[in-house]
């Protein structure tokens, strides 16, 4: 009999592994309410943030008014649903109270209590003091902004919270240093807290002098201290090789003090090497080999730093293109777990390099890696996901043919990626390159849904593409429908969005598309818009229009066309008149009105054509 001990999530994990992504569905977060299915990137952002902020608001109320939320219905008890205690429970001056304040991360209250304990002569144990030092150094000697207040004040959560503390750098004689000075026998932990705090708040040279102090006290540093110092190393030296020498020196001291490096050490060294120029390129791989020998396997953050060392944005890529390939050889098929906050940078860095070097093959490998195991978590937040997909898709547009591009397009848009108008323009270019303009109406529908229907440049490009060549009849029909739809977009300008304004180019493209589809009446309507919007049609357009009128033999319309042309004072009007007279059978009355019209034009001296030019054919009739 065996009993296999499975984790409590094992059953669900097995079930989850059977579910594949549905490229037609939106993100799972939005599936509860079809009304809230995002269609554009801004909607996506809005909906996901509002969902999150709703959660935060609920948490805020529960924590602020715990007395209303004491009823515990759940059996067994669910601790995470109960309100957190935000007020200190222990009032007396004691070590226990200090511990409580430290756990509640109340920096000021903890420091005050410590001072009271000192004044009362109550000894505080070294461990508790160290914890207090940790707290002070971590928050830079100021109280952390409450998460809940944050929700109300500024929706941008994380950055806003950290910044007010970052403003204060590590001040002279702050509480951390004061308390540290009071310690009779500071140990490694005390020094570690102080040095890490100094590095975190930018007092780099002070951190190194504290480290010297530590060595003078015959103590050993711990691995996190070294990590912090390595991070600080590029800040205290000027030259590339000096920076590197300092890092090597620190590593040697680690070895001397028998401190085993960890993954964060590796990543700190590589991150520092990013700022060491050419030294970084020569030393990056030996560093990785060194850590491999200590059985520390690089995480995605390490590879990210490595790529950043070799591929500086904007720099030429000669001879380095294969580093990406080497990295991909290393990571392909592996499932990574998040171990470093920088892990989430890898995918966007890798795909940026693919885009810069136009290396579609590696891009596919990067994308494949994303599908392995839990790697998708390492793609980072929504913003990074969008960057990643935009880069990947741009590269596809650049390098692949339309069928492949469309396959990816259907797969990614709009379930995970909401393309920007620039990317959509790339897509149009691919359509153009591969002669698949017949897909334009489909793309227009997507464009409209993605909220790019009012991007003037994009819409004009769409119209130009449709008007440029003559397609077969069926396609022209769909083009005409699409063109009329675009016209609606110009007309409505829905819900306070930016209105597009007609240009001569867009109008004449629209007319050409409609004419090509034999929709003379619609085209005629558009032609009238020239006048209402004070645009001037081109002569070729009117010429084309006349040809179309001729096919139906509508004389009146032909005359009107000439009148429109004359109304715009086009220099091509005489030619148009000539064509009308030659190609149409004008009745007596029409002839008369036509002639008066011509003479009217002549009288108004708008045209410089000669009498014989126009009148001869009339007489011939």
């Amino acid at each position, binding site marked *: 009999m065996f009993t296999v001990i499975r984790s*409590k999530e094992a059953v*669900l994990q097995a079930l989850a592994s059977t*579910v594949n992504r549905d490229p037609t569905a939106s993100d799972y977060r939005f599936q509860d309410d079809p009304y809230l299915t995002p269609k554009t990137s801004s909607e996506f952002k809005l909906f996901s943030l509002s969902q999150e902020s709703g959660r935060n608001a609920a948490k805020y109320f529960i924590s602020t008014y715990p007395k209303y939320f004491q009823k515990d219905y759940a059996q067994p008890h669910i601790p995470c649903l109960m309100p957190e205690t935000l007020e200190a429970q222990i009032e007396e001056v004691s070590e226990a109270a200090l511990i409580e304040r430290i756990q509640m991360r109340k920096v000021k209250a903890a420091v005050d209590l410590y001072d009271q304990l000192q004044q009362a002569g109550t000894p505080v144990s070294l461990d508790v003091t160290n914890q207090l030092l940790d707290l002070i150094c971590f928050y830079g000697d100021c109280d952390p902004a409450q998460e809940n207040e944050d929700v109300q004040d500024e929706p941008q959560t994380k950055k806003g919270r950290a910044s007010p503390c970052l403003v204060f750098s590590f001040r002279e004689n702050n509480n951390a240093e004061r308390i540290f000075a009071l310690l009779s026998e500071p140990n490694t932990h005390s020094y570690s807290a102080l040095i890490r705090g100094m590095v975190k708040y930018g007092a780099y040279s002070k951190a190194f002098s504290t480290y010297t102090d530590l060595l003078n006290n015959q103590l050993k540093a*711990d691995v996190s201290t070294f990590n912090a110092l390595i991070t600080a190393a590029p800040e205290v030296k000027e030259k590339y090789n000096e920076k590197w020498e300092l890092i090597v020196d620190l590593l040697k001291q*680690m070895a001397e003090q*028998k401190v085993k490096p960890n993954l964060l050490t590796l990543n700190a060294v590589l991150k520092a090497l990013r700022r060491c120029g050419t030294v970084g390129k020569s030393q990056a791989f030996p560093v990785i080999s*060194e850590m491999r020998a200590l059985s520390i396997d690089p995480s995605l953050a390490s590879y990210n730093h490595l790529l950043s060392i070799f591929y500086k944005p904007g720099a030429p890529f000669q001879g380095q293109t294969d580093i990406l390939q080497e990295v991909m050889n290393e990571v392909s098929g592996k499932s990574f777990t998040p171990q470093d906050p920088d*892990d989430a940078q890898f995918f966007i860095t890798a795909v940026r390099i693919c885009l810069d070097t136009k290396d579609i093959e590696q891009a596919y490998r990067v994308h494949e890696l994303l599908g392995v195991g839990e790697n998708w978590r*390492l*793609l980072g937040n929504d913003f990074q996901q969008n960057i990643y997909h935009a880069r990947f898709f741009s590269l596809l547009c650049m390098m692949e043919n339309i069928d492949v591009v469309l396959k990816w397009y259907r797969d990614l848009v709009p379930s995970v990626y909401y393309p920007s108008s620039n990317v959509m323009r790339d897509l149009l270019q691919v359509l153009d390159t591969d002669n698949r303009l017949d897909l334009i109406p489909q793309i227009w529908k997507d464009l409209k849904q993605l909220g790019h229907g009012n991007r003037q440049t994009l819409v004009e490009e769409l119209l130009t593409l449709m008007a440029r060549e003559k397609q077969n009849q069926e396609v022209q029909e769909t083009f005409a429908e699409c063109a009329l739809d675009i016209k609606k977009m110009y007309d409505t300008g829905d819900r306070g969005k930016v209105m597009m304004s007609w240009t001569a180019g867009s109008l004449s493209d629209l007319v050409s598309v409609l004419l090509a589809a034999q929709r003379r009446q619609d085209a005629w309507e558009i032609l009238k818009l020239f006048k209402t919007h004070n645009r001037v049609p081109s002569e070729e357009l009117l010429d084309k229009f006349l040809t179309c009128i001729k096919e139906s033999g509508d004389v009146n319309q032909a005359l009107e066309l000439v009148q429109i042309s004359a109304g715009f004072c086009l220099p091509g009007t005489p030619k148009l008149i000539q064509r009308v007279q030659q190609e149409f059978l004008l009745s007596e009355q029409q002839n008369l009105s036509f002639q008066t019209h011509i003479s009217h034009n002549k009288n108004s001296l708008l045209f410089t054509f000669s009498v014989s030019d126009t009148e001869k054919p009339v007489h011939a009739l």
Partner: protein
Amino acid sequence: MYRRLLINIYQVRNGLIHTQNTRLPSTKCKERESFAPVIWAPCTARPLGTSSISFSENKENSTSLSEDKEKRPEENEAKEEVNTDGQKSTEISNATLTLQLETEPVDKPEDSKQVEKTKSGKESLLELLGAMKVEVTTVRKIRPSKTPRMSERPDQEPMESTHSMFQHATAKGSQQQGTLNPALVAAVSAAASTLPNRHQAESELLKQLRKHEAVPDTQRRADGQNIGHIIADMKVGGRKTNGRSSARPTSQIRFDDDGKGYTQDRGITGELDAVRRRKSPFTSKRLNIFTAGMEQDTLSVLGPTLWDIDLANQIVQATNQAPRNGFEEMIQWTKEGKLWQYPINNEAGLEEEASVPFHEHVFLEKHLDESFPRQGPVRHFMELVITGLAKNHHLTVQQKKEHIDWFRDYFRQKDDVLKEAEA
């Protein structure tokens, strides 16, 4: 647009090749027809390295250059001689052409034709190169054989280069057509791009060529035609192409192909070059600061510090934690403790009761003994209470005890009232 540009260039190049083909004299065309498919077939079927092709094309150029010079005087002197050195010199280029094809037995009979048609051979090579650029798989196939080649290079043939290849080609060509050692072919193709110091290598090569020339070869000197001259002539061309190849190794093919160098191209050749240039950088030497298996001084660990918690928090925030489907959301809830754990266990949350035996729950009389009266209404009431408690599955044993204790206290407080009533 980048890809569009490429398409255009390919089209232009194809056009060029086609025009070259049509410009051929009709007799040549016929013969080309006869052997062109043979050349095409192996190159599509066989995993060929572009390196060897680009390399042989270099020589192709050089030899055809020198050959043109050479051929004219030759034709005056010894035109009808079947086995002249002039013939051999054409064979050189032929041999280089067949280098990549020689393992294919089919093309051997065609050799004689190719000898006469070095020019058309070049064109076919151009076509072949055009075709090769598409073949991506070659990189992978060449890679494994790389290390042995590199290792044999220094001792066996220290000066391997285009020149040494000429030597071999001439030597073999005079003896037997198209039976070049495959190992040699492999070595030569490996050497193509491994000339680190061009000038030094070149001078050494010249020396060796001269030495080779000095070797008495009766067979070759029989007609008084000095092969040394031919080789010396080749060197001119060889140096030229060689210099170019080391200057721009990746775009080599393109230059020879249509004469227009274009800059941005990272095709198969670049990739191949990278493979040859160095081994995987991840296996490079280490810094040797730490010693593996190092003992770590154990510090007193007090559980996670604030910094550790923050690191974990940062990692969580940096990564994408949003569930992708319902099951993943349930996993998240399970981790937060909001959901029953699967598989469903109706004793979940009753862990501390698991060790309490059944009879503790049911037989509660032992708790009544000391302080309750032995008989009477209180006793009767308490018996009812424990019967109820014994059937109650919502309470733990501890709670049941507390329940009984509460009644004990209660009746103790009401002791005098009870006594009064009874008494």
